[in-house]
């Protein structure tokens, strides 16, 4: 790995996003809109207070998963990946560059959405608000890492977009946000145990209730471990030689 090359990839990905202001507005605007809708729909009551922080913290996962899988798919189909693979660039430079770029975007996204949620929308969390933002950034990096991996299995942008509901929705349904994990059928809970977003959600819920502890540390460790695993899987799909 080489810091110069990693940084070059990060700056290049950010420059590409800067050329696309509409996407940037959507990245920040859509979670703000959803957070506002949630508040108005439940009139700021317990449902909003229960789901507000997880929405804030999980949304960057969805955004970055989508943006990354499309950007990487373009890299594969346009030939730029093939060109990079003939250059002195380590696969990890490419993956880390992507991760850092989208983490930077997630910092801005989570900061702006939390300003709105904790300010005008009057969302309350018992734990530290900064921790919600930090978890949002970690989830964004997880989304990026998974998006890099999944892009290898899509041949078109249509397919890449369809991976989003396929990979994200089941995880959110089973995370414990909608149904308490204790009330799930055993086999569903087993699946839930195996999905990284379950731990991402749990960490956010514990921050909201201020019940941080060993279980919270486990949650964070699982999310970080999942990021590394997804990056490793992504590296396996990046081949210097293709047929």
């Amino acid at each position, binding site marked *: 790995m080489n810091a*110069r090359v990693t940084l*070059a990839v990060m700056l290049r990905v950010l420059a590409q996003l800067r050329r696309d202001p509409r996407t940037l507005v959507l990245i920040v605007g859509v979670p703000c809109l959803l957070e506002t809708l949630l508040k108005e729909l439940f009139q700021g009551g317990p449902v909003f207070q229960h789901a507000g922080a997880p929405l804030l913290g999980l949304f960057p996962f969805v955004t970055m998963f989508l943006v990354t899988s499309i950007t990487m798919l373009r890299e594969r189909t*346009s030939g730029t990946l*093939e060109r*990079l693979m*003939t*250059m*002195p660039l380590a696969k990890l430079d490419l993956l880390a560059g992507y991760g850092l770029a989208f983490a930077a975007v997630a910092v801005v996204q989570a900061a702006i959405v939390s300003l709105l949620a904790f300010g005008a929308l009057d969302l309350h969390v018992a734990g530290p608000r900064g921790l919600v933002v930090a978890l949002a950034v970690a989830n964004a990096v997880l989304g990026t890492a998974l998006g890099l991996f999944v892009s290898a299995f899509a041949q078109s942008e249509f397919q890449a977009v369809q991976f989003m509901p396929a990979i994200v929705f089941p995880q959110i349904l089973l995370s414990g946000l909608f149904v308490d994990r204790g009330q799930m059928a055993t086999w569903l809970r087993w699946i839930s145990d195996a999905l990284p977003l379950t731990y991402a959600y749990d960490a956010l819920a514990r921050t909201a209730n201020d019940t941080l502890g060993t279980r919270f540390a486990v949650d964070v460790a699982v999310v970080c471990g999942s990021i590394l695993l997804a990056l490793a899987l992504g590296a396996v799909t990046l081949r*210097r030689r293709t047929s």
Partner: protein
Amino acid sequence: MTDTAAVRVDRLHVVRGGAVVLPELSCDIAPGSVTGLLGPSGSGKSTLIRAIVGVQRIAGGSVEVLGEPAGAKTLRSRVGYMTQAPSVYVDLTVGENLRFFARVLGVAPDAVDRAIGQVDLQQETSRVVGRLSGGERARVSLATALLGRPDVLVLDEPTVGLDPVLRRDLWALFHELAQQGTTLLVSSHVMDEADRCDSLLLIREGRLLAQATPDELRARTGTQLLDDAFLRLIEGGA
């Protein structure tokens, strides 16, 4: 076969999607020269080029570049590659593209201006690639291949869609680079470019029909036009 070949392809066998693209191809490319790789589209030119730059999975045989196996780590800053479709970022400007690849290659920033000058795109440096014409995009892609002053330059149809003046200038550039010691392999499917090469590799259906200079080819086939020479070779007349 000489011992000083810059590129040595030995009984290369490539299968893509179940079909044999290159059955058993061998050739040598002399250093400091411009070698034209000519053949109709679908003849296996791009596959051979991909094998030489080390991105093609091969089923048999070997490819050596500058004495090392193709794709070796040490070759990655010594081999410049221009893919057939312009492989640059369409949402970035010309300058942004080249500065990015310069950072990846670890070359000084002044290499960017030099490469842009070599392909005559100084006026377009701050334009977004997606807004450029096809020919201009191809030149951005070519400039990227030139960035690191590579010892071996492999160009897959670099002059497609360019106007004649620009084509002439680029061929002059190729020869200038060859005189400085660069080895160039340039593919084309138009025979009128063959005369501009020091040496020719003619391939058809994955097989090498001939490796010769343009004059040798004329002499061997007894024709004046290289197009006719190619036909003679195909029909087994020479």
